[in-house]
């Protein structure tokens, strides 16, 4: 228990991401390098939500708030010539502070699950309408105008700490984004196997029982919530560095719903599932977007309803279950352990 061990599946998945990080820039053209870097940033944000929802059992609809806050913090700090490291640190710190304040009120106030979901959503909506209303030049932080609906453009890319003007190439940024994704995935996978992570899963399963056993669910929930927020903030910063632009749409409903949708699609309770689902669905979304078949909120709404209707367990677990039954039917009986495998040990 004190020495957490990671299973081979998780290690293999992280290794796969690391291989993509190193090989990708050589195999792909610049357009796809940029596109996949952006996908990896959003996948990073989703891992945070997958942890908060799947491991901790806290359904936060405000994940986009932390993502957007990180994005804006990076944009402001790097434009104000703070250097990439300061900007990245700020992008993690800002969501951390918001998550601490919000989480204190929500968890220590013992606000119910349902209310928590609603309140986190409200915070996101408020941030969205606030940043939309900052068109006036008097709304500026550190001398950087927030720009209202137009957002902040010409955000500097990531630069090496040695020299402020020594920007990373798109290929290096690609490698960095995928390595950040692999490292975060591995770290969260490791965390859920530590003593704290196991108690977090216990809180998810039965909060009252954990409390009676002497653990403090409020503290654990706050801790997990803050970790998820920091991951989202980092993802937002990398996303902005990659795109060179940030606008209020990072806070809008479709952004929140995308994170949620990818997590459901990948399977709540797993960390690798949401990552895979996010890549698959982002390709799909960009295909729909470029082919102009229908507007995205129509499609996303329909896809969410489809998943709730048909695959409530998510894409990956449903696929696993299907494969498992197929193999069993074919006579290749797996060990009994595999059939009773809990969500906890899924990669």
């Amino acid at each position: 228990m004190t020495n957490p061990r990671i299973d081979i599946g998780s290690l293999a998945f992280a290794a796969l991401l690391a291989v993509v990080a190193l090989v990708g820039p050589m195999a792909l053209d610049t357009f796809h390098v940029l596109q996949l870097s952006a996908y990896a940033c959003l996948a990073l944000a989703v891992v945070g939500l997958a942890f908060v929802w799947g491991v901790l059992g806290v359904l936060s609809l405000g994940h986009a708030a932390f993502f957007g806050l990180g994005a804006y913090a990076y944009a402001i700090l790097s434009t104000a010539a703070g250097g990439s490291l300061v900007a990245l640190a700020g992008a993690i710190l800002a969501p951390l502070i918001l998550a601490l304040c919000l989480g204190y009120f929500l968890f220590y106030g013992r606000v119910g699950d349902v209310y928590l979901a609603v309140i986190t959503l409200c915070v996101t909506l408020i941030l969205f309408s606030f940043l939309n209303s900052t068109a006036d030049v008097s709304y500026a932080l550190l001398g950087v105008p927030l720009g209202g609906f137009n957002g902040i453009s010409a955000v500097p890319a990531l630069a090496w700490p040695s020299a402020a003007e020594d920007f990373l190439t798109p290929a290096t940024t690609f490698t960095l984004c995928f390595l950040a994704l692999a490292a975060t995935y591995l770290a969260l996978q490791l965390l859920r196997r530590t003593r704290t992570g196991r108690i977090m899963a216990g809180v998810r399963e039965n909060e009252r029982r954990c409390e009676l056993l002497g653990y403090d669910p409020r503290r654990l929930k706050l801790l997990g919530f803050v970790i998820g927020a920091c991951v989202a903030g980092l993802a937002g910063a990398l996303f902005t560095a990659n795109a060179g632009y940030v606008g209020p749409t990072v806070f809008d409903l479709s952004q929140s719903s995308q994170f949620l949708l990818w997590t459901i699609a990948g399977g709540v309770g797993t960390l690798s599932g949401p990552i895979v689902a996010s890549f698959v669905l982002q390709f799909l979304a960009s295909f729909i977007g470029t082919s102009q078949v229908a507007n995205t909120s129509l499609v996303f709404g329909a896809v969410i309803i489809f998943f709730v209707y048909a695959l409530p367990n998510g894409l990956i677990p449903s696929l696993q279950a299907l494969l498992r039954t197929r193999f069993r039917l074919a006579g290749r009986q797996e060990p009994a352990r595999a059939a009773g495998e809990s969500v906890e040990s899924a990669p």
Partner: protein
Amino acid sequence: MDQILVSGIAIATSIAILVLISLGLAVIFGMMRIINFAHGEFIMLGAYATVLSANAGVNLWVAMLVISPAFVALVGLICERLLIRRYYGNLTVTMLATWGLSLLLIGAVTALLGNTTRGIAAPLGNVAFGDYSVSTYQLFLIAFAALLVLATALFLTRTRYGLVARGTMQNPEMASTIGIDPKRVYAVTFGVGAALSGLAGGLLAPISGVLPNMGASYVAKAFVTVIAGGSSVLFGMVGAASLFGPIEAIVSLFTTPVIGQASLLAAAILLLRLMPTGLSAGFRRSP
């Protein structure tokens, strides 16, 4: 003196608007415990129903008070039948399903009617108080909101159907053993909630821009108001609205409407920290 009166009317209007947008949610979320994220879109559909039928030549009052609630009740009943009915008792799944519904409705309206703001002029003109003049429609909204709360309260406490609905929400199995079909009661109650949301949309159409994603600006306020109201759904909600309305109105007056909204939310979070079971925890048993 006149200035105080006019400011009082402005504050009463903000309370009335908060009550109107929360009433449908108080029934669907407060009574039935369904997290209806499509609430804002029900309001949006009600507003569109009023604008489109008024532009088509229907009398504005008929459009607001009859067509909007009827149309949204119909939409609500269809959604309940096809989607929400399957997930009663499962809060998370209903939340996700209604979220999908919300996006679907926004997308569908955008595809059909375009992403442009529509509007109609407020009826009734103005009434003067000394040097100031106030839109008569505001006064109508205040009176109508009060009337609607009263009617809903009487409906829930003094009619047979209200009794059956409240009993069924408390104990569906017991209700079914005495010959009441809980499914039917749930469906009708959802329809009533949707009708109230549609009515709110119709009434707000003359004083707000009508566009596909207008619901987003109402759903947050409505939810915090109903949540902060607590277990006594109707009167708790009105109490919370009377607290939050003035906060939003006064802060908006001195800063911007957006900071007004933010202060409403902050007040709600603070209230829930201090009174986790809501404002009505201290009330006597009432609907």
